């Protein structure tokens, strides 16, 4: 079996703040195999964004505190890595697409400079000018084009850095980057990329900005791409365009993607595997088709039911009674038991197994897992 790009083992993260300790992520285990899209869904405050930002260790420490577990990226655990070495893994190792494109693009630089910087860093890492944390297997080259020839030693490098080293090795001009940047802009289906290059982020629409973010993330050729709610801030038709783009890129790039969203519809359209999070725990994990067809955790089932699709005459809409528990005062036993229709006395005592494989009907895949005592009975819920 091939080595997974990312494997998270029993990861727990707490936030230690004045008001107490918040268990944002508790005992989450997850595998992202190469070339597969893993979706994570959950409500606000279930820890999905904490999980996303914990992987490239973007969380501020403190208040975040890695209590236990491992984040194994291409065979190496990232948690003991010293802070100074972390930038070496970001960009070319793990790429990230954030939710708010306006907040994540630098307003003082043109589109060209933002993408060129990412490309420059990758080149420097490939050429050994900048250290690479862990080489790992070469990621799939999806541009299918050779790199531009280095010319004109005296020209100004666009990212001032270690100038001596840069001159000694290879220096690229703005025009070299221009070609490559245009390539990435075309990859994300931007019409008229020559004009877009010279604009500032505030001059672009939301959909365009998100495409630029995607182009930036892809231009580092990361082995793992983390998309943290990439379409949530967009309008419906623009969201559909970006989603279509993401789906096409998933096929073209064959990258491993961790796709985080609160929208079940979006995840259903993009992901191969799906993880459902509730109160910091991964309560269900499996192939996306299996989960939508036959959810094995009462929470997933009620979440699927509470999507409004019918008319006023069918009032009331099914909801989940109660509310999400406070992450600093979690209930004993299973975290969902106060709201669960299947809850039995054991649920209040024993938290139950963490993701056990569910034996489904014959022939079904055996990778469908849930953390529930009564997973087999979930199908009987309305």
């Amino acid at each position, binding site marked *: 079996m091939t080595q997974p790009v990312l494997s998270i083992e029993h990861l727990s993260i707490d936030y230690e703040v004045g008001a107490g300790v918040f268990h944002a992520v508790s005992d989450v285990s997850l595998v992202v195999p190469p070339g597969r899209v893993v979706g994570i869904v959950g409500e606000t405050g279930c820890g999905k964004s904490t999980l996303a930002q914990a992987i490239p260790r973007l969380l501020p420490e403190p208040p975040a505190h890695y209590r236990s577990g491992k984040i194994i990226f291409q065979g190496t655990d990232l948690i003991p890595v010293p802070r100074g070495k972390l930038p070496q893994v970001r960009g070319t190792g793990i790429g990230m697409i954030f939710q708010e494109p306006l907040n994540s693009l630098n307003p003082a630089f043109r589109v060209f400079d933002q993408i060129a910087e990412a490309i420059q860093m990758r080149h420097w890492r490939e050429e050994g000018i900048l250290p690479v944390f862990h080489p790992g297997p070469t990621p799939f080259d999806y541009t299918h084009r050779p790199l531009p020839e280095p010319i004109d030693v005296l020209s100004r490098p666009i990212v001032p850095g270690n100038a001596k080293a840069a001159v000694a090795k290879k220096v690229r001009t703005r025009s070299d980057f221009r070609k490559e940047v245009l390539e990435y802009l075309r990859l994300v289906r931007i019409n008229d990329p020559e004009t877009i290059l010279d604009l500032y982020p505030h001059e672009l629409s939301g959909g365009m900005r998100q495409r630029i973010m995607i182009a930036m993330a892809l231009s580092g050729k990361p082995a793992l791409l983390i998309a943290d709610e990439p379409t949530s801030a967009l*309008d419906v038709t623009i969201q559909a365009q970006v989603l279509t783009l993401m*789906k096409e890129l998933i096929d073209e790039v064959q990258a491993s993607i961790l796709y985080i969203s*609160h929208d*079940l*519809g979006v995840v259903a359209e993009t992901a191969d595997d799906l993880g459902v999070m509730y109160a910091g725990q991964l309560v269900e994990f499996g192939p996306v088709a299996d989960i939508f067809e036959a959810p094995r955790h009462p929470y997933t089932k009620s979440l699927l039911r509470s999507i*409004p699709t019918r*008319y*006023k005459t069918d009032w009331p809409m099914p909801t989940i009674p109660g509310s999400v528990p406070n992450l600093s005062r979690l209930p004993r036993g299973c975290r969902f038991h106060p709201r669960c229709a299947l809850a039995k006395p054991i649920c209040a005592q024993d938290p139950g197994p963490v993701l056990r494989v569910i034996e489904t009907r014959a022939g079904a895949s055996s990778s469908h897992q849930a953390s529930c005592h009564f997973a087999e009975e979930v199908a009987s819920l309305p």
Partner: protein
Amino acid sequence: MTIAPPLLETEGVAKFFPIVRTVSDIVTGRKARAIHAVDGVSITVQAGETVGLIGESGSGKTTLGWVVARLHEATSGAIRFEGRDILALEGAELRYWRHNIQVVFQDPVGSLDPRLTVWQIVGEPLQAQNQMQRWFATHEPKRIRREYRIASRKERNRLTREFQAAVHPKAAAHRKLTDDYYKGVTERAKLLEADRERWTDEYQAAVSPSRDGPPRPPAAERQKRHAELLARVRDRTTRAKTEEKRLRVEYRAALKQTNQIPPVPLPERQRLRDEYRAARKRGLPTPVIPKIPKPPRINREMIRAKVQEALPLVGLMPEILDQYPHEFSGGGRQRISLARALIVNPKLIVLDEPTSALDVAVQAQILNRLIELQRERGLAYILITHNVAAVRFVADRVAVMYLGQIVELGPVRQVLERPVHPYTKALLAALPVADVRRRRTRFRIGGDIPTLIDPKPGCRFAPRCPFVEEGCHTTDPPLLPRPGTPDHRVACLRAEEVADISPASLLETRPSPAGSTGGAPAAAAPSVS
């Protein structure tokens, strides 16, 4: 039998936000521009009904909600609430009227003052309403008396004028002719001036066009145009003078004619005078001055008690009175916002994206509560959202907005199940559906939303529309009822031709690419140990 007017009725409401002219705009002679946020929207809301407004951001749905609640001033159009023109309200009268429409704002964080506690936030409208009720109790009788005084003065003046015209018919006819003659003179002078200004502008635009216009014509051409302008103005003035002369002659002849009118005989004059005196003495019927009880000034304890009663309505505990908004989750804040709207017993609530910031499960709770409240109190809602699923669940009728205009309006079932306008189809096709089989589908509508600054005529969806025709770019499509279903209105020139095309046709399904494992869960991932 008269039909009761709808609760709310808007007629061609428009809201333009002017763009400040920069120095360079003034130098280059660029005209003042405006953002057409809402452009000619006519919609009705009946009592107890929910109308959904859906559309993307920038479609003007929030602006429309604000205009209806008089939080923005409409640029043009009319809004009637229970048959009353609310755009004419101002000052204290407007403040008194405000309790009829309340708004639940979009952002549950920004719309609650972080320095106030729950009872202060929810009780604030109560305080204002109490103040206005006290104002109304003292001022309403005064207003009725003042209006009576003004009306009776007008009536007396009218009677006098009629009496004078009746006893002196010759003078009356004389005066009417003179008035009409001078009115005509002024009007004709205005027309002449307008023509002259228009032609001068045309000439100016032709000889010295602005920076982004066509190039400046050569000197010979410019001179020719100047001569043309002079000739045109001279010709027009001559014609006006001839006309003036003719009318003056006619006027004098008519004046002479009035000399033929005989004076009214004395007994008839005396009879008219008696009638006039009697009518003046009678006057207008005295108005009924209502006795409005003045409510006592509301105090802290009363507000707290009322807030305590209102909180359970929206599913909040009464114990939270002294907590601050930051102590609540998004759903809790939205409930506080809703309680604040409900506490003054409005007839209509504008719900501006009430569930967009919330998770699915919480969203379902709030929507259920909204419908329950509507059934208990006969509330009407305007539900502004981009969430089609929420509209489908809550609304009775739905209006689809695009760039400030309504493109489709009708009963929810009809619009969402058999959409006619291409934009509605695109919107519905774009929704991500929790269905794994949609993995291979691609959305085909390209392009971004165009600008709202001085939009060009023609259908506003035309640049993105897959069914576009030539006429679409030039003709504004009117919002017309569909034959057979008068409730269902569509603004599309090709409505009947595209009516039967399903939204799914805006998606294309791609075959699975070779070698890809996407969508085939059989090639399963290694399981987590």
